[in-house]
C-alpha cells in the first residue's frame, strides 16, 4: 500500500500492443486448419458460416464485458449470461410470436436488462462490493427473477420478423445475424474510441486516481459501463431468441466464462485501461472454433469446461501479472 504501483510492466506490454489481436487471429486460423486436418470438411464454407453464427452471440455479449473490463478495478460482469437468458425469456413472452409486439418486447427486455446493470453498477460503486462478487450474486437474483416471472415454464415465441432478421440469408448466403453483429461491433468501437464516455472509460481503467483528479466523473462512468454491459447482454438474448425461436430457462447461461475469456484473448487487460472490441470479436471466434474443434474430437462437456478454465488460466498468466513487493 505504501509503495507506489509503478507502471513499468505495462510499458513493456505497450511495445507489443498490436500483438494480441493479430495473435488471436493467427490462433483462430491455426485452429481452423487443425480442425480441417482432424476432420476434413471442418473448414468448409457452410461450416465456417455456422461457426461465425455461433460466435456472433458470444461476440455481442462480450461487447459489454469488454466495456466493463476496460473500466478496471477488477471490473467484470459475470451476470451477462443470465441477463441474456432473462431478456430472451421476456422477449419471447411479450412477443408471443407476433410481429406487432416486437418493439414493446425488445424495449421491455432491454429496459429490464439495463435496470439489472444499474443495480450492479450501484453495488460496485456506492456499496463498494467487488465486481466479481456483486455480479456473481446478481446471477442468483436474476435466476430468481426468471423463476418468479415464468413459474418454471418459459412461454411465448419469437416473432417471425425477428427470426427472419437473424436467420435470413442476405448476401453471400450469410445470415442477417452476422450483419447485426458487424453493426453492433462498429457501434462498440465508436463508443470506445470516439466518445467522451469511451475516453473517460479508458482513463478510469488506466488510472482511477488520475481520472478523479482530472475531473472525470468516475462513478457515473462505471455505473454506465455496467448498464451498457447488461444492455448488450440483453440484446444478445434477443438475437438468441430470434435464432432458437423458443426459449428455455438456461438459454444463454453458459456464456459467462467465454465472455470473459474472449475479452482476455483479445488483448484487453483485466487490470483495465487497455484493449478494444476488435480483439474481443476475434477472441469470440477463437473460442467458438476451439469449442467446435473439441466437439469434433468428441471431447465431452466436462473436459471442455476444464479446457476452458485452463485456457483462461494460461491467458491470465500471460497478461494479468501483478507487481512484486520488492522494488
Amino acid at each position, binding site marked *: 500500500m505504501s509503495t507506489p504501483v509503478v507502471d513499468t510492466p505495462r510499458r513493456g506490454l505497450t511495445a507489443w500492443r498490436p500483438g494480441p489481436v493479430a495473435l488471436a487471429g493467427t490462433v483462430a486460423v491455426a485452429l481452423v486448419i487443425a480442425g480441417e486436418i482432424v476432420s476434413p470438411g471442418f473448414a468448409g464454407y457452410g461450416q465456417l458460416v455456422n461457426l461465425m453464427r455461433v460466435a456472433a452471440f458470444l461476440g455481442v455479449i462480450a461487447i459489454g464485458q469488454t466495456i466493463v473490463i476496460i473500466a478496471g478495478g477488477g471490473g467484470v460482469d459475470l451476470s451477462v449470461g443470465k441477463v441474456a437468458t432473462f431478456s430472451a425469456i421476456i422477449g419471447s413472452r411479450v412477443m408471443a410470436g407476433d410481429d406487432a409486439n416486437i418493439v414493446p418486447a425488445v424495449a421491455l427486455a432491454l429496459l429490464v436488462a439495463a435496470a439489472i446493470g444499474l443495480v450492479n453498477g450501484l*453495488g460496485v460503486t456506492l*456499496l463498494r462490493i467487488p465486481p466479481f*462478487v456483486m455480479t456473481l450474486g446478481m446471477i*442468483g437474483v436474476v435466476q*430468481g427473477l426468471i423463476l418468479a416471472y415464468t413459474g418454471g415454464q418459459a412461454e411465448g415465441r419469437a416473432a417471425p420478423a425477428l427470426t427472419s432478421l437473424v436467420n435470413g440469408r442476405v448476401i453471400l448466403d450469410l445470415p442477417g445475424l452476422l450483419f447485426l453483429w458487424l453493426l453492433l461491433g462498429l457501434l462498440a468501437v465508436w463508443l470506445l474510441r470516439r466518445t467522451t464516455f469511451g475516453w473517460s472509460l479508458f482513463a478510469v481503467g488506466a488510472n482511477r486516481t488520475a481520472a478523479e483528479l482530472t475531473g472525470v466523473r468516475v462513478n457515473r462512468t462505471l455505473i454506465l459501463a455496467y448498464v451498457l454491459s447488461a444492455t448488450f447482454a440483453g440484446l444478445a438474448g434477443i438475437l438468441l431468441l430470434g435464432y432458437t425461436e423458443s426459449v428455455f430457462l438456461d438459454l444463454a447461461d453458459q456464456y459467462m466464462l467465454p465472455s470473459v475469456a474472449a475479452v482476455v484473448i483479445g488483448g484487453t487487460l483485466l487490470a483495465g485501461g487497455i484493449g478494444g472490441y476488435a480483439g474481443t470479436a476475434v477472441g469470440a471466434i477463437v473460442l467458438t472454433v476451439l469449442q467446435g474443434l473439441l466437439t469434433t474430437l468428441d471431447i465431452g462437456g466436462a473436459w471442455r469446461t476444464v479446457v476452458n478454465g485452463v485456457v483462461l*488460466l494460461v491467458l491470465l498468466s500471460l497478461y494479468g501479472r501483478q507487481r512484486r513487493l520488492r522494488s
Partner: protein
Amino acid sequence: MTGAAAGLVDRVRGVQLSGLATVAMLVVAVAVNSALQPNFWDSYALTSNFATFVPLVAIAVGQTIVVLSGGLDLSLGAQVTLASVVAVQVVDGSLDRFPLAVAAALGVGLACGALNGLVVALLRLQPIVATFATSFVFSGLALVVLPTPGGSVPFEITTAYRDSVLGVPVALLLIVALALVWLVLRRHRVLRHVYAVGGDADAAYASLVPVARTRVWAYVLGGLFAALSALAILANTGSGDPFVGNELTLASVAAVVIGGTALAGGRGGAGGSVLGAIVLALVTNIIFFADVPTDYRQLVNGAVIILALALAGIPALQKRRPSA
C-alpha cells in the same frame, strides 16, 4: 505525500461489519425462525437444522482464512463439489473405505488449494480472476469423476451425522469442533502471518514475513476446509452430486462479510463467519417456512445474499477503526 489522494481510492478498502451487527442479525434470524418454523426448538428440528448448517460453516471458515490473507477464493464451491464426488466414488457405500474417502477428500482440497496458492502467490495473478478460472477446472473435473448424481455413503455415517450425543446434535458438535480448529490455528505462526500479509503486505515483507509462502498456506487451508464441507454434505445427503457446491461459493463470501471480516483482508476472524453462515442458513429456512411461493424462493435468497454483501458498505453498521 500522496496519502490524501490515495485516500480517494482507498476509502473503498477496509469496510468491516461490527461484531454487534453480526450478533444482532443472528438474534433476529433465530427469533423470526422460531416464530415461523413449528417446533423450531424440538430436538428433531434442531438436529436437522444443524445438519444443514455444517457444510456452509466449514466452507465459510476456509473462505475467511483466504480473505484474511488479502485474497478471495471463488473456486471453493467447485472444490467442495470435486472433493465430494471423489470421496463418494472412493467410499462406494462401504464403511471400511470411509477413512480412505476422508483422506481422498482432504487430498483433493489440499491439491486444489495448493494450485490456487501457487497461481496467486507465484504467478501473481489477481486472486479473484485466478480462482474464477480454476473453479472451471475443478467443476469440470468433478463432472468427469461423477457425470450424474449418484454414489452412496454408508448409512452408518449418515445416521451418525444426524444423531445426537446426550441430547446435543452431532452436527452442532461438528460446528463447535470447526470453531475449535480455528482457535487452534489462530495460535499458529502461519495464521499470524496470514493476518500480517492481509493487513499490509509491504510491511509484512519488510518484517521478514515469507509473504508468498503465507499466501499459499491460506489457499491450502481454504481447500482443506472445503474438503471438510464436502464430507459434511455427503454425510447429510448420503449421495454424490456434481453440482452440489455451486451455490456455496457466494454464500461463503456472504457469510464472511456478515461475520465482520473485511474483504480487504487482515481484519476479522472465523468466529464471526461461523455465526454469519448460521444466519444465512437460517434465512434460507425462514424463506422456506414463511410460505414464500416456490417460484420466488430463489429470488428472495439471491436478494438476501446481495443485501448481506451490501451490508458492509453501509457506514452505520461498520466497525469503527481506530484512526490510523
